[in-house]
């Protein structure tokens, strides 16, 4: 009964410190900041252990998601679980943001 995150001792490839290194992007730092802010003393909306539970809940997707996409999923699910926003609100917001970002990416 091994969780998807429990990597210790499993077969894996070589560690390539040059190839597997990059400075965190602004987007990654934004996700990092959101996580730190929901944990902080002012908000205390969630605990790090809850975030880990959510990441482990990704199951097989845990391996597919890059690190900060796992964090983003955890933040999202935690905010839904805590009732900070509802699934309906999120869906409506995503529709609006999609239109905006697609236009931006298409150079509009």
């Amino acid at each position, binding site marked *: *009964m*091994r969780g998807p995150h*429990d990597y*210790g*001792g499993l077969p894996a490839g070589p560690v390539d410190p040059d190839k597997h290194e990059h400075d965190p992007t602004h987007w990654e730092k934004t996700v990092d900041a959101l996580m730190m802010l929901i944990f902080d003393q002012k908000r205390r909306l*969630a*605990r790090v*252990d*809850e975030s*880990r*539970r959510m990441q*482990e809940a990704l199951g097989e997707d845990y391996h597919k998601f890059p690190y900060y996409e796992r964090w983003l999923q955890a933040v999202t699910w935690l905010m839904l*679980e*805590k009732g900070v926003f509802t699934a309906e609100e999120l869906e409506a917001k995503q529709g609006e943001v999609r239109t905006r970002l697609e236009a931006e990416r298409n150079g509009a």
Partner: protein
Amino acid sequence: MEPKYKPGDKVRILQRNQPGHVRTPIYVRGKTGIIERIVGSFPNPETLAYGDTGLPYKMLYRVNFRQAELWDDYDGPADDTLEIEIYEHWLAPA
């Protein structure tokens, strides 16, 4: 809270399946090591993970293993070791 174990005690990590969030990785379960030190009492991550208070606190230890105990095929000198933090409710005397 009185720690049940002291540095130098031989302990076995429980070979236990448990649903939900736990911090005892599979690779140390069922293995025997030595208490390196008592870290102190900390909220229980297994309940913190569900938004609970983590009470009652659990005593946390650093447990030292010989690598050869963890991996049958360990490729390295016999005195290489691994240390990891284990909560008291995952330990049994060995």
